[in-house]
């Protein structure tokens, strides 16, 4: 177990380093220039040039990456956070500290001032969605998988396939049209702001519904497949032919084994939800991490993209780690 954690920890670190470099390199395709972005369209070329030099934007990719990494690790002060530059960039945490993600050119704020509240908002959204997805998909999947080929199975399977066939944005606009425009029972946007006339809770309903519907279908199919597979295993026959009642066989023998694969899948949904919120948050103007990432990407805000990517990857890899640990706990064979 300790070995597993150590190995996974090392893999996590490697993944973060490689992925952050990958993203760094990718963003270089974009012709957008940090100095131009900072100053806006009508700034003169001379002004852009001055800022570019201040920011050392002419340095080679690797040099800039290493500098970025050094700032992140607190080995170097953020070059932007220099009062002499007159950029008014000031991080209340100081210029040099571990976890300094730098400065967002899109928001003109230290990344750490922006990203965490967004992440918290998204965590709330994804958390609620997750809390809906898990029981819903388990219920659908188990019911369908218990008697494959039955009418109930057919209905539930078609339902879940249809659910997974509806992209979030299509679902989003359709639900918004129905509930916000026609029925007027829910707010059409979810800015999480008070004083909009809608209780905070009501602002979660549509985004959660969009995330949960699409994803539940997928997970339900996984659960169903796993259930069917497990019910076909010889040890289920063993249990039945021991004379155990079917209900007991399903509860004691089938469920635990049938949950091993979906458990991994379900945890990986957290990773999926991070992506899914990009669309959902855009549709509902939800002030979350996904929309921020989209804006940052469109703007070419490297510091923010990097930070967001690292955070997303960290969540993803930790989730994987959790799923490994869970697998380890669920499956005695993995424990050796």
């Amino acid at each position: 177990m300790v070995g597993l954690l150590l190995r996974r920890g090392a893999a996590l670190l490697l993944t973060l380093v490689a992925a952050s470099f990958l993203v760094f390199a990718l963003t270089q395709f974009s012709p957008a220039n940090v100095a131009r972005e900072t100053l806006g369209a009508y700034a003169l070329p001379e002004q852009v040039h001055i800022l570019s030099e201040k920011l050392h934007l002419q340095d080679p990719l690797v040099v800039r990456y290493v500098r970025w990494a050094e700032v992140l690790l607190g080995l170097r002060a953020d070059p932007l956070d220099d009062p002499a530059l007159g950029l008014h960039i000031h991080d209340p945490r100081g210029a040099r500290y571990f976890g300094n993600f730098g400065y967002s050119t899109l928001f003109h704020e230290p990344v750490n001032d922006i990203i965490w509240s967004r992440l918290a908002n998204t965590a709330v959204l994804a958390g609620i969605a997750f809390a809906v997805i898990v029981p819903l998909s388990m219920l659908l999947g188990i019911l369908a998988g218990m008697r494959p080929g039955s009418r109930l199975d057919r209905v539930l399977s078609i339902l879940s396939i249809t659910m997974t066939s509806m992209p979030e944005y299509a679902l989003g606009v359709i639900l918004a049209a129905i509930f916000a425009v026609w029925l007027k029972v829910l707010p059409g946007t979810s800015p999480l702001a008070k004083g909009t006339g809608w209780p905070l809770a009501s602002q979660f309903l549509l985004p959660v519904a969009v995330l949960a519907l699409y994803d539940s279908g997928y997970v339900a199919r996984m659960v169903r497949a796993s259930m069917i597979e497990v019910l076909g295993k010889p040890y289920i026959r063993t249990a039945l032919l021991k004379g155990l009642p079917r209900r007991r066989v399903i509860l004691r023998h089938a469920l635990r084994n049938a949950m091993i694969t979906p458990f991994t899948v379900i945890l990986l949904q957290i990773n999926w939800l991070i992506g899914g919120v990009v669309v959902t948050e855009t549709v509902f103007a939800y002030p979350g991490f996904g929309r921020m990432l989209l804006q940052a990407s469109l703007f070419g805000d490297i510091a923010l993209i990097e930070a967001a990517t690292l955070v997303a990857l960290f969540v993803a890899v930790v989730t994987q780690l959790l799923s490994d640990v869970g697998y380890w706990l669920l499956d005695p064979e993995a424990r050796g």
Partner: protein
Amino acid sequence: MKPPFPARSAADAAAGAVARAAEQIDRPSPSLLARLPSSRIAMAGLCLILFWVLVALLAPVLPLPSPTAQDYLAMGHPGPSAAHLLGVDTLGRDTLARIVWGARIVLLVAPVSVVAAYAVGCAMGLLAGYCGGWVDLLISRLADIILAFPVVVLYVILIASVGASALNIVVAVILSSAPAISRIVRGITLGIVRKDFVAAAHLRRESALHIMLIEILPNCRGPLITDFCLRLGYTTIMIGTLGFLGLGIPPPAPDWGGMVQEATPMLIVFPLMALFPALALISLVLGFNLLADGLNELAQKD
């Protein structure tokens, strides 16, 4: 060449039986595709897909206006009319024509990108599974890193950086799908590499390339068919999502996701404008997913 068995008429009382039971070789059991009609789900999916394929193929001969021609007189009443069966979009372009021509795009870009992703993914998976050792380690680590990205995030960062175009979408699909495909292929390859027919190929001194492409790859087909269909559906969704986020096929090309996005401001007044392309997309994805489900079911009956 003389038969290896000496004639043993005396001993061989079973001669008659040998004649009657002469080597019977089974008729070929029908392949997965041949058995497709027995799955109603798969057939429903196939029909949906074929419908769109047919629509896409017939687009040039259907009596439709150009998908980019603008009829600004119709913009005031963009709902279905005699002139525009499914109405017009925000720029007065015929929605039906755009859906029909949009089918051509999605049915070209999605399969091309998935096939390209398969080419890369299969190559990676075969190499990793066949070579093992540090090659496997390298490829698998690389795949892990890319797979750790939430897919949408990867797409958004990539497309936002390199710009939106059909080619870049293909690149993005390759980048995000190839590692997943590689993982599947690697798993299958690891199973097949231990098979005796691969050892037999080694005993003929076949090249590694021959073994990977001729001996191993064709046997990955079965498990990959389902994944291929699912991935087609998923890629279709992805292309639509990119269009919706403004990162899709550039206008004025009729991109279904883009059509939904363009029509969303009109949702309150002219909901059909967004609904039609959304339904088109949903039905095509549903087709791919149903087919995948049916195929999967058939494969499991084997």
